[in-house]
């Protein structure tokens, strides 16, 4: 049996929702839960806090989360024929994206970040990515799906 193509319309809708959810989670994480951690990182790594909180940086963070939202829903769509539809597969897709993000952060934990910021930030990143994956996958569907 030849699998169906990815449903582009639902992919876009799911990606937008996932991106919005991830932006909300990251806003809360970075501006409230991790706020003092980022101030500490800026101080010890010679980074200007004005650069971290500028309009350009804000646009970048929003775009990054929209791209990650797309990636997580696209991954979900790509692995559905193998692993089946539903929240279990959405969580696996979220983990595939999260693993790369967390590994990258871990490799900077000895230089740009610190290990405690990495652990706190990583846990929040996991919550953000899974929330994005589950919400995007909830919207994504293909012809023949039974509700």
């Amino acid at each position: 049996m030849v699998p169906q193509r990815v449903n582009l319309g639902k992919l876009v809708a799911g990606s937008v929702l996932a991106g919005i959810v991830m932006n909300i989670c990251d806003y809360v994480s970075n501006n409230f839960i991790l706020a003092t951690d980022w101030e500490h990182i800026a101080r010890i790594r010679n980074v200007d806090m004005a650069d971290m909180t500028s309009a350009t940086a804000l646009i970048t963070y929003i775009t990054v989360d929209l791209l990650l939202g797309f990636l997580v829903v696209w991954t979900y769509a790509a692995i559905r024929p193998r692993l089946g539809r539903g929240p279990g597969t959405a969580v696996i897709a979220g983990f595939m994206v999260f693993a790369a993000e967390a590994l990258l952060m871990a490799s900077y934990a000895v230089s740009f970040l610190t290990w405690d910021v990495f652990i706190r930030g990583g846990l929040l990143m996991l919550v953000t990515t899974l929330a994005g994956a589950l919400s995007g996958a909830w919207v994504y569907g293909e012809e023949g799906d039974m509700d």
Partner: protein
Amino acid sequence: MASINVGRVVVGGLVSGVVGNVIDGVANNTLMAQDMADLTRKFGMDPAMAQSLAAAVPWIAVDFIFGFVMIFTYAAMRPRFGAGPKTAMIAAFVPFLAASVVVYGFTSMGMMSMAAYWKGTIEALVSTQVAALAGAALYKEA
């Protein structure tokens, strides 16, 4: 639908990790050497510590885990896109894009220059694509 062949994911992931480490090791010590030195200085790190095994271990481990993630992704995507190098290259884009956009976020925070970011990103694209192709060549369904 056959389940994923875990043994082959492990073998393919190991090969992928070795290939990724070789490419990254060469690139970081030649093409990216000056950028790495600049980052060490900017972060106020001891250059000897930055060159130490303790600093290298996370990067080496990351390439191996990236290898497993890419080959698992390849195996999971095969029923949708078919077996072969094209699907391996698509699978490599998942960790590459996820990592690249996070570093882009760090770059916009002032972690490194945009020139260094793009140089590193192109190197990572080559590294992940070659590593995924090498690992996926060994993956077979049970």
